[in-house]
């Protein structure tokens, strides 16, 4: 395996610094929300994690199409990396949402359209990894994975638009929310700056993790080929 590219090393350092800066902005720069108090600060990373999760699933969707067109194995590696990172961030999003909901909605969980579609989406992609575990042949696994990632992506726009098309208790950050939504608030300039910076930070974090994960996938592939050569 070749040494880590210099760009990736720099990107990793920049990511850590940005994450530290975003955390400082959340705790010390963004003002305390007038009604919800401290728990509102979870919102900045909750939305950013949700965005990153969906970004991961989108990468897998694009990689799936690219694999079916080119049959190049690198796209399978990109696809599984996207799903894996997407799952991690969607899990963060769902759990932090539940923690926020306890004091605001007075319940840990409710089968609201957004919570339900997000959970289904998470389970759909968890099943993607299970499907891959069950297929031995690498080409067949890549083909199944690509098709599954494309079809599974239907759950992403459904989750994103669920709070915009169904009656819901979940607040809408961008665009008008439902009249029944509980926990909505108007953002001040400092809140908006913190929110946007958190989104950018998590996007950079996603790119960094994806790059590392793709390098790991390529390394695992090389070892697999070496193993086959030795066994032949």
């Amino acid at each position, binding site marked *: *395996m070749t040494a880590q590219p210099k760009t990736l090393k720099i990107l990793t350092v920049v990511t850590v610094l940005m994450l530290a800066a975003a955390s400082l902005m959340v705790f010390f720069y963004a003002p305390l929300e007038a009604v*919800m*108090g*401290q*728990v*509102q*600060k*979870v919102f900045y*990373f*909750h939305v950013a*994690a949700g965005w990153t999760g969906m970004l991961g699933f989108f990468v897998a969707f694009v990689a799936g199409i690219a694999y079916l067109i080119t049959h190049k194995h690198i796209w399978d590696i990109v696809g599984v990396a996207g799903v894996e990172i997407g799952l*991690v961030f969607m*899990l*963060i999003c769902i*759990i*932090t949402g539940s*923690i*926020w909901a*306890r*004091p605001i909605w007075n319940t840990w969980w409710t089968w609201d359209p957004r919570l339900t579609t997000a959970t289904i989406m998470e389970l759909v992609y968890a099943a993607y990894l299970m499907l891959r575990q069950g297929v031995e042949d690498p080409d067949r696994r890549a083909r199944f994975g690509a098709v599954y990632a494309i079809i599974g992506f239907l759950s992403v726009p459904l989750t994103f638009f669920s709070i915009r098309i169904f009656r819901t208790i979940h607040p809408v950050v961008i665009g008008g929310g439902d009249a029944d939504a509980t926990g909505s608030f108007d953002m001040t300039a400092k809140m908006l700056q913190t929110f946007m910076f958190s989104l950018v930070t998590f996007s950079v974090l996603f790119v960094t*993790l994806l790059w*590392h*994960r793709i390098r*790991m996938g390529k*390394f*695992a592939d090389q*070892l697999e080929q*070496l*193993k086959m050569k*030795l066994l032949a």
Partner: protein
Amino acid sequence: TLTYMIAGFAVIFGIMLIYLVSLLSRWNNLRKDADLLKELEKKE
């Protein structure tokens, strides 16, 4: 709602840390495998 905020951030950084450790652990396992395979290749 301070307790909930602390719990929320513990979850955020906790899950990230677990994923990071899992990545590093898999890297190390792959490196060990690579060393082993190189040894076998030399013997062949």
